[in-house]
């Protein structure tokens, strides 16, 4: 895998697009994996994903049937795996929006090869996340609609000062916008699929979703703006969503939660974990779907750099938390950060988090590491683990030791907790595999556009490198 970049002079900038292409070649090469029948590998993965998904089903049914008590939660640990997974998945989702929206605004050309992929990931991650806020309530059947401000016969409304109410709006908005954004970007490609389908039924189906797109110049004129504005809106949205998620904690009085640094630190963490997750999926996809010419080492290199940067932001967050805990002179805070987290029953998780999130990214100072597929892949997985541990530390470690020692309890998860976590990974994988099967993993139209720009603007390459 490392072969190509060894043969190349390391100082020469990596290309955005490998080889010479025409619209046709791009079109066919990128749609190829859709037309190619599902291979053994795909089916194998799909089988695993489905079994994990069924585990999710069982866990959910059991939870609804018996009650939240089948989880490990207790008093004081009122929130546990449910909220950890929620925050973790939401965070993962953010990379997608960031790549497709923010990089678009900054006109980062290298974005185009990976944005479709990332947006899809956002969508699926948010779906996984959405499960938990509802499931973790004691009475989901009421939570489902009492959280909505509708005129009820009881004349009572939601309580708008609660971060959970903010969450409802933030997360649902986030999901809706991501969906619209993703679909809008997909429409021209669906048309392409329609037009290059061999069988009539496929053309029908894709045609249905393409909604009669005919690449009209009048449409493109509005389309470009609609897409750009959605991107422009998603950017503050993605920042606000994780800010609001962080409010769930920051707004409380709990030592370890009650911190002003949370919003930026959560967003950085989100991007960090999100990029890691993109890499975790992109690397194999790139291998097996023959996308190497569009998702080049340059892209991997850039993403590794982003991991390094966000990783250090997160580290800074940790440092500040501890500094403030010490500097504020608040005995509860101090104890939380310097005694409970480091020496308490949950300390191993804390140290694992520190290793994965602060130490691991440092390898990306080396370009060799940045362009070595295996290193990248393992690092990305470690970072996902690390970020999960971060949420564990924030949620559970803070809760299980708070103000009054007489009500300190330990926490241990049950099989349902674990199944729910594995299950959501199954759900995510299932959706992702289906996505890879039925729509192009790369934005065909935009690649065509990119190709033309590259052909006519030799500086574009270097422009692509710098950011």
């Amino acid at each position, binding site marked *: 895998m490392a072969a190509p970049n060894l043969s190349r002079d390391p100082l020469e900038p990596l290309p955005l697009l490998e080889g010479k292409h025409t619209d046709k070649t791009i079109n066919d090469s990128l749609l190829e994996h859709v037309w190619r029948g599902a291979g053994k590998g795909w089916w194998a993965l799909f089988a695993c994903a489905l079994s994990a998904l069924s585990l999710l089903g069982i866990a959910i049914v059991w939870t609804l049937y018996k009650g939240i008590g089948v989880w490990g939660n207790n008093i004081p640990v009122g929130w546990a795996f449910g909220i950890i997974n929620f925050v973790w998945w939401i965070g993962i989702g953010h990379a997608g929006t960031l790549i497709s929206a923010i990089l678009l605004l900054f006109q980062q050309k290298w974005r185009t090869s990976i944005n479709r992929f990332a947006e899809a990931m956002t969508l699926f991650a948010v779906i996984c996340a959405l499960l938990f806020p509802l499931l973790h309530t004691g009475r989901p059947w009421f939570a489902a609609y009492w959280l909505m401000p509708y*005129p*009820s*016969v*009881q*004349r009572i409304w939601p309580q708008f000062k609660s971060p959970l109410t903010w969450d409802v709006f933030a997360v649902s908005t986030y999901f809706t916008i991501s969906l619209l954004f993703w679909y809008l970007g997909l429409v021209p490609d669906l048309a392409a699929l329609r037009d290059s389908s061999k069988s009539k039924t496929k*053309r*029908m189906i894709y*045609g249905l979703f393409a*909604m*009669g797109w005919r690449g009209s110049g009048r449409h493109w004129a509005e389309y470009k703006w609609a897409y750009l504005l959605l991107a422009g809106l998603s950017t503050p949205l993605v920042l606000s969503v994780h800010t609001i998620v962080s409010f769930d904690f920051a707004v409380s009085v709990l030592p370890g939660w009650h911190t002003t640094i949370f919003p930026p630190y959560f967003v950085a963490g989100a991007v960090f974990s999100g990029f890691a997750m993109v890499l975790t999926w992109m690397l194999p996809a790139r291998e097996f779907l023959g996308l190497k010419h569009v998702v080049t080492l340059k892209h991997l290199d850039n993403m590794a750099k982003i991991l390094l940067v966000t990783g250090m932001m997160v580290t800074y967050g940790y440092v500040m938390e501890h500094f403030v805990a010490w500097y504020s002179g608040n005995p509860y805070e101090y104890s939380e950060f310097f005694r409970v987290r480091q020496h308490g029953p949950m300390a191993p998780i804390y140290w694992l988090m520190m290793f994965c999130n602060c130490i691991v990214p440092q390898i990306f100072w080396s370009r060799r590491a940045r362009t070595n597929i295996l290193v990248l892949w393992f690092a990305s997985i470690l970072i996902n683990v690390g970020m999960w541990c971060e949420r564990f530390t924030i949620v559970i470690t803070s809760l299980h030791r708070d103000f009054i020692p007489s009500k300190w309890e330990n926490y241990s998860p049950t099989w349902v907790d674990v199944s729910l976590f594995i299950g959501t990974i199954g759900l995510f994988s299932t959706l992702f595999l289906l996505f890879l099967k039925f729509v192009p993993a790369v934005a065909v139209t935009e690649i065509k556009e990119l190709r033309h720009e590259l052909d006519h603007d030799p500086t574009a390459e270097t422009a692509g490198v710098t950011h």
Partner: protein
Amino acid sequence: MSPLFRPKHNTLAQISLFVVAAGAVGVPGGLMLYARTPYARGMQDPIEQPLQFDHRHHTRDEGIDCRYCHNTVDKSPSAGIPPTQLCLNCHSQVWNKSPLLEPVRQSFIQNKPLEWRRVYKVPEFVYFNHAIHVNKGVGCISCHGRVDKMAAVEKDTTMTMGFCLDCHRHPEANLRPVSEVANMDWKPEGDPVDSGRLLAAQNDVHTRTSCTTCHR
């Protein structure tokens, strides 16, 4: 090879879009409206009792005060369903041969209670107290309607939390002299709200809307 779709599909597409949109708005809206219909609230639906008891006859024709039978209404949370014994206070004298009253006599002789069918029910987490309302001059009619005009009693008010709140926020219109609570024909002189204000002062009415007033 002809195009995938024909012109008719355009209209089809538009119609289906409209249906989806209409559904998205209509279904929740419809449910909210339904919840407010008398049907959903079980109103306007006279409930047949096992025994042909006619409130019209007893209250209007005979002029019996509600509190003669529902005699714990002013001292207990519950208004009280009269024991069979009470029926027989009169009916051992009057109509003591009437076949209509056979169930009552049987009940007393066999010591088996009459099983009435419930008309009003508040959920088990709602603690309504008749005594305080009656003692502060809220008339029976305010919640139970013109029982003296019902052959078979029917639910007259929605009994939603909103219904309770309205009165607890602005009780004036439903207040009357304590002596008149059972009076079905009482009408305030002049504007009900103005006279209500006076009565509120007289009866020392302090309605509360704190949750624990009703939920404990």
